[in-house]
């Protein structure tokens, strides 16, 4: 008790890949651009199964918001959370705008993330540390 783990937040999100696919098919590029950056869109559509990659990224963005205890709105959008891959293919996030300000104010210096997909589902977790 009283042990400072340095953990400032935890978030998880799970979604049906088909759910995102249906939304994108209905609303097209306009919807994609409200959620993803150009680079994310390009990467995912360069893959054989774009929707599993898009869904995992959507989950990761939602997991980060949850870790901060935020919903959408208040000037924060999913595009403010950008999912990238390092040279080993491990994901990391870069945050922008209001969310970045919020992180600085709350003393969050690192966001540790992981994402996965299997069959019909995609999932992601995010941990905030000082």
């Amino acid at each position, binding site marked *: 008790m009283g042990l400072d783990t340095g953990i400032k937040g935890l978030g998880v999100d799970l*979604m049906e890949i088909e*759910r*995102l696919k249906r*939304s994108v098919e*209905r*609303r097209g590029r*306009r*919807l994609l651009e*409200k*959620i993803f950056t150009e680079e994310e869109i390009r990467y995912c559509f360069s893959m054989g199964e774009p929707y599993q990659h898009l869904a995992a990224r*959507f989950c990761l963005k*939602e997991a980060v918001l949850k870790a901060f205890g935020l*919903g*959408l*709105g*208040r*000037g*924060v*959008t*999913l595009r403010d959370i950008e999912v990238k891959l390092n040279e080993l293919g491990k994901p990391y996030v870069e945050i922008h705008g209001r969310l970045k300000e919020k992180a600085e104010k709350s003393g969050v210096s690192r966001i540790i993330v992981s994402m996965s997909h299997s069959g019909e589902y995609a999932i992601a977790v995010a941990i905030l540390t000082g």
Partner: protein
Amino acid sequence: MSESIEARAKRLIAEQFGVDPEELKPETHLVKDLKMESLDKIELIAAFEEEFDIEIPEEEAERNVTVGQVIEYVKAKLGVK
């Protein structure tokens, strides 16, 4: 007569949540009654932008949580009383 703003708005909301437009009352709450999730919200914003040719920032959308508020918001955006 062409479809009213109210009818068009209700049609979009009804389509999004798979309900009958007749069931939508001004006080119907998007989250509490229609169980709106984050993706529904983004989809609805995209649908309204397309239907009415307007731009809807998320922080403005945030303030409209009932069907009636959404309709009033669209009317205000279009400059209709």
